């Protein structure tokens, strides 16, 4: 049969962002994928380098509207690591609450979109309907439905008012029966089973090779969750479980997300119970030279920020690695050999959003060349490359380089490294 190329996007109806997937198909079967994501590249990392530390949270929360708390949180944690700031207790709890509420709304949003992707608009509408109360609470607490502007180096920007606590509690408790309903409706529907079980399986090995994170990796059985592994905010004081799946298919990814909603509700309620009045901010004076890493478990997985400071009030480098950047490539591993109709739901299962990926990537669709062969070629060319490099750059050059670096670091007052 003839190969044709089916574009998904760049301007595709319900994929909110401009991802551009080109499926090479033979009949209905996907043979290869060409991914192209640059439509959203706004150069945020460079913009951040021209902003002061205090301005950056506002920029990074606009990396993406869905993770609009995870990014600032990861960023402030990175900066706090540089400045060695101890964040007040209450601020930690507030951070946790906001982050979990974000997870709630994000997972509900995903559920809706996934429903839409398989043409189940009722689920879409219902999920988004039940997402509204979460946004209402957010608006009440932070002043905005999205882009909450709550994170701040050294604490949080706003306190949660006493009178808001019962509202949050009620909202979280109201969500429980809703969740049960969704679990029942979605997890037991035979047609949904037919569409999602065994579809788009990501093996644990592939998940590791691609560095997948979040529900995408957890559905394949990798129990990685920054909240447990490298606890931040108040997560180490709370009682909750890391949800993992086994099969790595679309169904498992959906199940993991649904069950995580329940965990999030649990976390929020515990925070409300444990939270004590107190300071919410340490007024940071200066950011010394140095470098720091901030990691946050965003709804879609680990968000990673690396910040380097030179002692002025602007960072010299701010690297952002959002979850989708490592999750989207797994799409290639899971999708080839499946049908076009499945491609969308597999894609949806990763919950891809390219705002954060923020860059474009083109995976070669080189006609007929299967990825496996590509990597075989690599091995050869790599061996050659190494030989060349050895002969070109002798030890001498390397040592001078090292000296230069040491010199550079000495000047900005770092310990030699």
């Amino acid at each position: 049969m003839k190969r044709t190329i089916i574009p998904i996007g760049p301007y595709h109806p319900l994929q909110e962002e401009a991802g551009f997937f080109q499926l090479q198909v033979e009949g209905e079967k996907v043979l290869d994928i060409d991914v192209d994501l640059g439509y959203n590249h706004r150069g945020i990392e460079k913009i951040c380098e021209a902003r002061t530390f205090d301005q950056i949270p506002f920029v990074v929360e606009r990396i993406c509207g869905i993770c609009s708390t995870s990014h600032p949180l990861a960023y402030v944690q990175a900066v706090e690591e540089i400045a060695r700031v101890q964040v007040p207790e209450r601020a930690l709890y507030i951070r946790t609450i906001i982050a979990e509420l974000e997870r709630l709304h994000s997972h509900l949003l995903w559920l809706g979109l996934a429903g839409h992707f398989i043409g189940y608009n009722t689920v879409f509408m219902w999920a988004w309907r039940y997402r509204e109360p979460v946004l209402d609470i957010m608006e009440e607490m932070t002043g905005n439905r999205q882009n909450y502007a709550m994170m701040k180096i050294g604490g949080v920007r706003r306190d949660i008012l006493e009178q808001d606590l019962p509202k949050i509690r009620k909202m979280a408790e109201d969500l429980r029966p809703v969740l049960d309903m969704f679990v029942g409706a979605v997890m037991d529907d035979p047609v949904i089973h037919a569409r999602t079980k065994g579809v788009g399986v990501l093996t644990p090995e592939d998940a590791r090779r691609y560095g997948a994170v979040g529900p995408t990796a957890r559905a394949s059985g990798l129990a990685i969750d920054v909240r447990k592994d490298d606890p931040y905010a108040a997560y180490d004081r709370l009682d909750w479980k890391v949800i993992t799946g086994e099969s790595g298919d679309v169904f498992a990814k959906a199940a993991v997300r649904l069950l995580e909603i329940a965990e999030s509700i649990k976390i929020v309620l515990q925070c409300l119970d444990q939270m004590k009045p107190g300071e919410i901010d340490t007024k940071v004076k200066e950011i010394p030279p140095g470098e720091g890493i901030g990691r946050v478990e965003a709804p879609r997985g680990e968000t990673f920020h690396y910040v380097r400071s030179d002692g002025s009030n602007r960072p010299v480098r701010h690297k952002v690695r959002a979850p989708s950047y490592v999750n989207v490539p797994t799409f290639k591993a899971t999708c080839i050999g499946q049908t076009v109709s499945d491609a969308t739901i597999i894609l949806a299962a990763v919950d891809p959003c390219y705002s954060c990926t923020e860059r474009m990537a083109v995976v070669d669709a080189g006609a007929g060349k299967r990825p496996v062969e590509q990597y075989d070629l690599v091995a050869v060319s790599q061996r050659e490359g190494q030989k060349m490099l050895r002969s070109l750059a002798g030890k001498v050059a390397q040592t001078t380089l090292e000296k230069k670096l040491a010199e550079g670091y000495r000047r900005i007052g770092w310990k030699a490294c």
Partner: protein
Amino acid sequence: MAKAGKKTASSTTPQKKRLLVDLEVCASCAECVTRCDYFYHPENNGMLSVRERATMSVVCRRCENPLCVSVCTRDALEKDADGVLRRYTMRCVGCKSCSIACPFGTLFPEIIPYAVSVCDYCAGRLRKDEVPVCVGSCPLHAVRFEEVDEDIPSPAERGVRVDDHLVAHALPWKKEGAKR
């Protein structure tokens, strides 16, 4: 700051060249907006921070009840142990209230920018007979790169050595003279 500078000064060679800012000559013309080759920020204008530090060290009257400090809504200004004013860059929002409040007109608005730059005095970056780029940028030669005698006169008389690398000069002021 100044203290630390004094301590280490003895260990450095007397011949060492330092950046000298003559605030008497400086006309605040802002010509010295220069892309100085600071380690990271390529657009860094280290001169601003140099002038800020020089001003706070030698021109500021070290008021006992500093108006600038009390007016700052962000608690960004503080006096250190030596009475030298310091501005914390993470707190200052560049509103310039302090420059309005200062009765001596010490804090020129242009030396308290929101986005600060850093000057490392080009330490280690200069080869023999080179001068920092900021030096050439001043049309009035208020910025120089010179060897300065170890025994510069005391702060009250002529100028103040801020630290190892910087010398700031201004007309002397006396507390008594400042009385009505």
